[in-house]
């Protein structure tokens, strides 16, 4: 039996895994992957609520806008990461502290 709660549980598990990825990884691209996981789980929530509670296409339209924002975010973030790697030859976010002092 597939109900709303099934989708909410899947999305919650993926959200927590994305959070663990962001906190645990030091690689900047790994952190980006965690952000993508979180955005996907939120999208699944929007579409599931639109299907089961709201019964309209509003949830799907919000999901489309989230996908657009995720694409823009990934492009800009990867440009920044590549630039840091070209200047400093490292990708570890705990060692990038040029603006600390």
């Amino acid at each position: 039996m597939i109900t709303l709660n099934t989708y909410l549980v899947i999305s919650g598990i993926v959200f927590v895994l994305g959070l663990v990825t962001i906190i645990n990884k030091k690689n900047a691209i790994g952190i980006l992957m965690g952000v993508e996981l979180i955005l996907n789980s939120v999208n699944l929530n929007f579409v599931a609520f639109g299907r089961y509670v709201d019964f309209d296409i509003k949830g799907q339209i919000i999901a489309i806008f989230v996908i657009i924002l995720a694409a823009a975010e990934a492009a800009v973030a990867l440009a920044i990461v590549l630039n840091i790697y070209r200047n400093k030859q490292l990708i570890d976010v705990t060692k990038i502290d040029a603006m600390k002092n």
Partner: protein
Amino acid sequence: MDAYTIVFYVLAAMTVISAAIVAFTNKIIYAAFALLFTLFGFATLYIYLSADFIAVSQVLIYVGGILILILFGVMLTTKIYDVSVKSERNPILPALIAGIGTSIVIGFVIFRTPWNAVVDKEFTTIAPDIGNAIMGKFLLPFEVASILLLAALIGSVLLARSEENE
């Protein structure tokens, strides 16, 4: 339990397990390829929610765009042929504490809220409905999103360009 439900749970397990591989693997290239399966799994879950346009957009934009960008990032920044190199990690304890705390909160919210959900009602959407809604009621967010995409395009080109021949 019919085949529809069995296939659903197989796809859901694939999604969750590959997301766990993304979270807990040590090699960044394995994480990138596990993310591929997670994104495909989400596309199939959108099909189960009868959101076919979102599913196709997911495959086109995430798998075809963002994942390729991430793979380019991995291959341009790390020496993937060096097998002994592992991605460094922070201590696991804060991540586990945050994860367990968030799961408890999310579990309470999911199972203690009366969601007022429709269960056995047919729901079909077609792509023209979404197009009409975007061009009608949601026209302003659409235009704002297009301006944002233009700004992100110009900004990322400016950030990533080579500065050697100045």
